[in-house]
C-alpha cells in the first residue's frame, strides 16, 4: 500500500467517524426530546 493510499484511507475513515458520531449524537438529542414530550402526554 502506497503512502498516498494510506493517507486517503485515514481521511475517509476520519470523515466517516465524524459523520457517524454526529448522527448518533443527533439521535441521542432526538430521543431525549421525544421522551420529554411523551412524558407530558
Amino acid at each position, binding site marked *: 500500500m502506497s503512502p498516498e493510499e494510506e493517507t*486517503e*484511507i485515514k481521511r*475517509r*475513515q476520519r*470523515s*466517516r467517524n465524524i459523520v*457517524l458520531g454526529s448522527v448518533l449524537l443527533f439521535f441521542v438529542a*432526538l430521543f431525549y426530546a421525544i421522551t420529554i414530550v411523551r412524558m407530558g402526554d
Partner: protein
Amino acid sequence: MRNAVAVTLPADWRDFFALTKPRVMSLVIFTGLCGLIAAPGSINPVIGFTAVLCIALGAGGAAALNQWWEADLDAGMKRTASRPLPAGRLARGDALAFGIILSALSVIVMGLGVHWLAAGLLAVSIFYYAVIYTIWLKPRTPQNIVIGGGAGAFPPMIGWVAVTGEITLMPVLLFAIIFFWTPPHFWALALFVKSDYAKVGIPMMPVVAGERSTRRQILLYALVLLPVAIAPWLVGGAGAFYGGAALVLSLSFLALTLPVAFRVQTKEDAMLPEKRLFGFSIVYLFALFAALVADRVAAAQGWIQGSIA
C-alpha cells in the same frame, strides 16, 4: 453487462448519502410534511419532526435497497452508471446493510416515538417499493410506473396518519392523487428522454406498448386525476380555496396533456409539448399540496370557513 468493480478503499460517507436518492427524498419530505400539516388535530413539533424524519429515513432505506438490487442494471445505463454501486465506490453488501438498517430504524423510531399505525404504513411502503416494485414487478410489466407510483403515494398518507392515528377517506385521497399523477408525469419524461431501459431489459411503456398507446394513457390518467384532485373538496375534507386551486391546476394539466396525447413524433422533433407537460407536472404537485396546506391552516385559524374533516 459488467459487474461492479471490487472495492478496496473504505467508502466515502457521501456515497452512502447518495444511496438514499436525496433529490427524490426532497419530494417525499414535502408531501409527507403537507399530509402532516393538513391533517386535523395537532401534533407536538418534536413528534411531527420525528414523523417527517422517519418518512425520509424510510424512503432513503428503500432507495438504498433499490440500488443494491439494481446495481447490475444501473451499470448498463448511461444515466445511472456513475451511481456509487455500479461505479465501484461502494461494496454491494455495505449498501444492503445500510438499506436494511435505515429501513428498520425508521419504522422502529416511528412506532416508538409517533404512532404504530404510521409505522406500519411506513413498513408497508418500504416493502412495497423495495420488494414488490423493484424486485418483483418492475422487470416484469410495462405497468411498472403505475405500480411504482403507489410507493411514492405513501408519504402524505403516513404524515396524515401520524397526526390522526387512523386511516380515513382524506389520507386515501392524498394517496390517490399522487398515484394517478405519477404515470403521466413519468411517461412524459420517458417520451423525450432517450433512455436505455430497453438495453437492460426493463419493459418501459413507450418501448413495449409504443408511443401512440403511451400518449393515450397519459391522457387517460390526466382525466382520472381531475376528479380525484378535487375530491377532497367535494367530500368536505378541504375548503373552496383548495377546490378552486385543484380545479384550475387539474384543468391546466389536462390542457397540456391534449397536445401530447394526439400528436406523433417527427424527425428532429424538439418534443416541446412533452417537456412542457413534464415541467408543469412538477409545479402541479407542489402547488396542489401547498394549496391544501394553505386551505387547512387558514380554516384551522378561522381565517376562512371550512369544515375540519
